[in-house]
């Protein structure tokens, strides 16, 4: 099918060099730091797996990891079904389609710090639109800077606001690719709406949904900017997710060893989980 051609490596060379420069060299640095100890002045001492042990045992890491997992799970549970439901409810053709697609895509093109700032302004307790509405119209006490629950709800709702459209657009693309004949056959077969969803729409959306889940998992697990700008990781460290904690240690405290070890562990978890997700979701395809 494909021609065997080792000279194809020439085509791939620019990409290889560019990504290697950006990935391999920094990773080597990180690996380097992760197994060494320094007291400044470029003096390094072999530390072995000490940093890894320290991180893996540290309460702080466990806490951050726990928060991160909770965040990611909530995101997936909310955004995927919600995205699919919206895609199902969207018109398939007509004037409103481009309008819907454009407005839904807009949140994804806003710089992430602006997203954080926007929600900050939006939720200020007395002068923000949502903040005022919650505190003064509904009478529910709502202050992100004081109450961890409020902070958590806000960062989750913010992410739902920010990224559900990705799921919607992917699911929608899958839906419109289903030929009309399937719906016609289902009508002739007397199938109910639920049967149409279960036996026609959902199976045909499988590929796009796999992409959507993978992307949302990865990006929510690695998230940094939006929650950081919104809450700074607070109040206290109640919304300090994994990336936020890592940056604190690396760029804030310049603790090279622990930061490097944590980076490797973090990256490894992302890769492993992504691989697991991917295998699980495409497992059925290989069942003959």
């Amino acid at each position: 099918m494909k021609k065997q051609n080792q000279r194809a490596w020439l085509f791939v060379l620019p990409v290889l060099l560019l990504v290697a420069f950006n990935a391999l060299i920094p990773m080597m640095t990180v690996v380097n730091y992760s197994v060494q100890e320094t007291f400044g002045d470029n003096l390094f001492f072999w530390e072995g797996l000490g940093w890894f042990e320290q991180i893996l045992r540290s309460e702080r890491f466990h806490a951050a990891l726990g928060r991160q997992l909770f965040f990611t799970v909530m995101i997936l549970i909310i955004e995927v079904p919600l995205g699919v439901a919206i895609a199902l409810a969207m018109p398939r053709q007509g004037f409103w389609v481009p309008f819907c697609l454009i407005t839904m895509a807009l949140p994804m093109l806003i710089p992430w710090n602006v997203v954080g700032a926007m929600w900050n302004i939006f939720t200020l307790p007395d002068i923000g639109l949502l903040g005022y509405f919650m505190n003064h119209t509904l009478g529910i006490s709502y202050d992100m800077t004081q109450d961890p629950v409020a902070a958590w709800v806000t960062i989750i709702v913010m992410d739902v606001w920010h990224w559900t459209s990705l799921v919607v657009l992917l699911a929608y693309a899958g839906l419109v690719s289903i030929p009309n004949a399937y719906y016609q056959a289902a009508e002739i077969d007397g199938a109910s709406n639920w049967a149409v969803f279960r036996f026609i729409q959902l199976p045909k959306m499988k590929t796009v949904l796999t992409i959507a889940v993978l992307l949302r998992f990865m990006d929510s697990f690695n998230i940094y900017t939006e929650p950081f700008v919104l809450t700074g990781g607070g109040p206290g460290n109640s919304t300090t997710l994994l990336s936020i904690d890592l940056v604190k240690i690396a760029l804030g405290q310049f603790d090279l060893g622990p930061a490097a070890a944590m980076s490797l562990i973090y990256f490894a978890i992302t890769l492993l989980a992504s691989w697991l997700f991917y295998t699980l979701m495409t497992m059925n395809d290989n069942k003959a």
Partner: protein
Amino acid sequence: MRVKSLVPALYILFLMLPIYWLVAMSFKTTNEILAGFTLFPQTWTLANYIEIFTDPTWYWGYINSIFYVTLNTVISVLVALPAAYAFSRYSFIGDKHLFFWLLTNRMAPAAVFALPFFQLYSAVGLFDTHLAVALAHCLFNVPLAVWILEGFMSGVPKELDETAYVDGYSFPRFFTTIFLPAIKSGVGVAAFFCFMFSWVELLLAKTLTAVAAKPIAAVMTRTASSAGYELGLLAAAGTLTIIPGAIVIYFVRNYIAKGFALGRV
């Protein structure tokens, strides 16, 4: 039927609310903002926008951002094109592993690379340059571009290539005059995503710049912390960052649903 169209309508309303608030706030004076809650600006002012358009620190932030984003998009797509072609048409030793390794870079937490990039780009003397940010963003944009382009290229039958060779086209001529037009929507989609992910990214852009190439995102965050919350100004700056995104979406609106399927559905 009616109930069904309520769902996307409500969702879009939900999406527009915070944006409306941002825009509304950008036209208010700081006094009005801090004095209390007003749904609609009572005293319209363009002062915030005027400040942004007249203060070099502000407008250079935008120019810097647009510059490195464009630079990154061009670089990413240019290097991705031959690589995607190779993955699509040829098999070679390690091709599957290479492809997979490329994709793993998209999965990397940016936080992991913050410090190493800072050191690396300082070491090669590129700190605080547009090129640094453009190159750094290639880490995740190039794999994405390769993935998207490969998908579109695989949709073009190999017979097209073979016919061109039989007709006597040299490879460069074939690629530019025949192949590229055939995948032009793929190039558009790849460029769109590169633009998008580079434009929105903050952490690396902020880490690798200081003054000369400072992106608008960094200018905004500095304002937020140091100047003690000039909310109206911040809102105006934020509103202006939405505009390039809106323009780009408008231009690719016909490809949006198709593009999000990455050519692979």
